[in-house]
């Protein structure tokens, strides 16, 4: 066990080392002044520039520059974002919170919808409803999320005007940044008409979380269906029916709880997918000023 952990830790360190070295070299590989690329500080005064150059050991060798860079990274000083001019660490923490929030709602959505539908399909195995749900899930799984997001915006925001297309909440509400989770922040804030703000934020959440949830929903649906079919075909269920137990009794009996054989695996799968795909669609909504 210890050996495995040690192996993983050393692998992680090595990966981070190579990665940081690569990201440091990017400052030289990108066009422009390496110091500006590293810090993100443009148009600094002469003294300011000299001070920065000293801090980043620009006059020393490449290796000591790299060492300074790593020190800055560990100190949490990640430089400024070129696109917003704000500290990168703050930018990342803000957008990370938004991502986590969106993914959480998408996950909830997909379980709330995917689980019952998966049961339905599994219990009606090889019936019409099973086939239609299965084909729907294949379609849902194959749709690129960014495209779905675009279509959703086009239909539900621009054509029908049901949902807003950008932002996390109407700009008319000035919700102070606390946790980064908009719904929590609203509850913590002291804005008047909290319930309207909450409702507005929910409306902003619907389109992006649904369009991401559609894919994770199909994953949940199919895994649930498979496990239900497996359990329903197992001998002890057959035996239970043979003893004359009602479907309700079978379904809610403690030993039939064995069935969620790997919900952790499902959740893991879905989270992995969200982390991966949210990036796609999140980017899209982000381009649309969404998140």
């Amino acid at each position, binding site marked *: 066990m210890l050996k495995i952990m040690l192996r993983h830790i050393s692998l992680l360190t090595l990966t981070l080392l190579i990665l940081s070295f690569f990201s440091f070299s990017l400052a030289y590989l990108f066009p422009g002044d390496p110091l500006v690329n590293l810090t993100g500080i443009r148009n600094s005064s002469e003294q300011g520039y000299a001070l920065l150059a000293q801090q980043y050991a620009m006059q020393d060798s490449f290796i000591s520059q790299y060492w300074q860079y790593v020190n800055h990274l560990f100190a949490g000083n990640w430089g400024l974002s070129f696109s917003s*001019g704000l500290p990168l660490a703050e930018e990342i923490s803000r957008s990370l919170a938004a991502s986590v929030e969106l993914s959480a709602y998408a996950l909830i959505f997909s379980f709330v919808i995917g689980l019952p539908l998966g049961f*339905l399909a599994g*219990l009606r195995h090889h019936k019409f409803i099973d086939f239609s749900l299965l084909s729907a899930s294949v379609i849902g799984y194959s749709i690129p999320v960014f495209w779905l997001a675009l279509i959703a915006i086009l239909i539900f925001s621009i054509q029908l005007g049901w949902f807003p297309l950008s932002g996390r909440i109407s700009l008319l509400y000035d919700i102070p940044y606390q946790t980064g989770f908009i719904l929590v922040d609203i509850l913590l804030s002291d804005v008047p008409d909290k319930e309207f703000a909450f409702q507005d934020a929910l409306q902003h959440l619907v389109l992006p979380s649904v369009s991401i949830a559609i894919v994770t929903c199909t994953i949940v649906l199919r895994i649930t269906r498979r496990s239900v079919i497996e359990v329903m075909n197992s001998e002890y269920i057959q035996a239970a029916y043979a003893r004359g137990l009602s479907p309700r009794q079978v379904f809610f009996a403690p030993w039939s709880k064995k069935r969620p054989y790997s919900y952790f695996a499902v959740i893991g799968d879905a989270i992995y997918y969200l982390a991966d795909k949210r990036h796609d669609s999140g980017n899209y909504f982000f381009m649309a000023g969404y998140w």
Partner: protein
Amino acid sequence: MNVRRLHISISSPVCMVLVCILSLMGCSPDKNEYKHPKGIIYCSEGNPASFNPQLDTSGTTVDVSSHQIYDRLLDFDLVTGETVSGLASSWTTSEDGLIYTFQLRKNVEFQNTSYFTPTRSFDADDVVFSFNRWRDKNHPYHYVSGGRYPYINSVGLADLISDVKRINRYRVEITLVRAESSFLSNLATDFSIILSAEYADQLQAAGTPELIDTQPIGTGPFKFKSFRQDRYVRFDAHPQYWRERSSTGQLIFDITPSSSLRLAKLMTGECDSMAFPTHSQLDIIRKRKELILDEKPGLNVGFWAFNTTKPPFDNPEVRKALAMAIDKNALMEAIYFGSAIPAASIIPPSSWAFQPDSKSSIYNPLGAAKLLRENGIEEGFSMTIWAMPVERAYNPNAMKMAELMQRYLRDVGIQANIVSYEWSTFRARLNQGLHDSVLIGWSADNGDPDNFFRPLLTCSAIESGTNRARWCSKEYDTLIDKALTYTNQEDRAYFYSKAIELINEKMPLMPIAHAFRYQAYRDNVTGIEINPYGGIQFRNVSKQ
């Protein structure tokens, strides 16, 4: 059979979920059912460089600051273009036109914000401070935030004023070096704003004078609240504002650089008004019944300037012949999609110096070819047309325009090559005079016609880089200078008509078009007016 009954027991959560989703959707269409906080959201096109228009002439900075945070001594009447009273309730001019005395309005309060609480109302000290900041190089605030005052320098206002003096608390006297009738107009531009001297003193005592331009204080209808780059600028209403106003809530600039996204937000109602709809979006806006599109002829001109220092373009006959070879009316449709009118001179029709009967050039390819041959330009002569790489109202697509003109010029036996560089390189090379001819234009900063004549064609404007024809005529300069010595519009108009005649005769540039300006907003918004003399104003904007 068993399984079917089981289905019933689990179908209830499915129903519940569906009901939940539907109810969530159902609550959204009636936006009016619940009330948002009061406020106007304007989708703007970019980040302001600062919140002080003295420092920056870009429209983005002006829109966000000039008429929201600040006031000026004088303002333009949006309809007539005349200067009307602002913070100065009245003013007098001495006989010789050198001394202007301004009577200031009383009980005008500065904004009270989280970072500044004023202890006194607006008075002469604020005027003296605001003027001396850009005028006096030894002023402690002159070099704060860079010390560049582009508009004020471009019209030479700092050199024109010899003294700004406080007479008493509500009276200020400004002495000029020479009489100049465009002086009052310059005081009414977006750039002649009044800052708070008390706030400046406080910042200086705290050792943070640069905050004056990023955490602004003024007397305007809105007070600054917060700014997040690429996201928003927030303002609250200034409750003690001295003028009548209809906007009482917040004002928010939703920074949205993509014009299609601005339009989408306008359609969904996330914005109440949007900046700069593109020409291709105009029809979409006109077709939506909940959107309103206002248009007004703008104070601008797009033109084709010849480099008059380079032979054979130093010959007026050649320039006239080239102008005759181009069909302006065809350009109107192809380039401006009908959102501009052909220009007969550099002065747009909305200016009082406009001459309705002036004739610039008439499309006549045969005459053009003949005139060219007479002046020694043979078939196959080659020249360059420089096309600016950016989109401007006065020329939304210079590249395409250059291509069309290439064809017209081929008809008269001229081989035109199109040249374009990245925008800053383009301007740098133009300043060196490397071009044969260039497609470019001008947007005025104030309602005064001098703002067209002087920067575009006077000798001194070659140096400052706005005279793209590099044309220098003593006769023309005299006319333009003389016009400024008269205060009466009719007298001035006489000199300007002479100047227009001279331009038509010498043709240093061919005026092409005056583009319309557009403002798009939702139908529940009232009070948005296009300001031909500068930035947008939200004082009288309200929403039902």
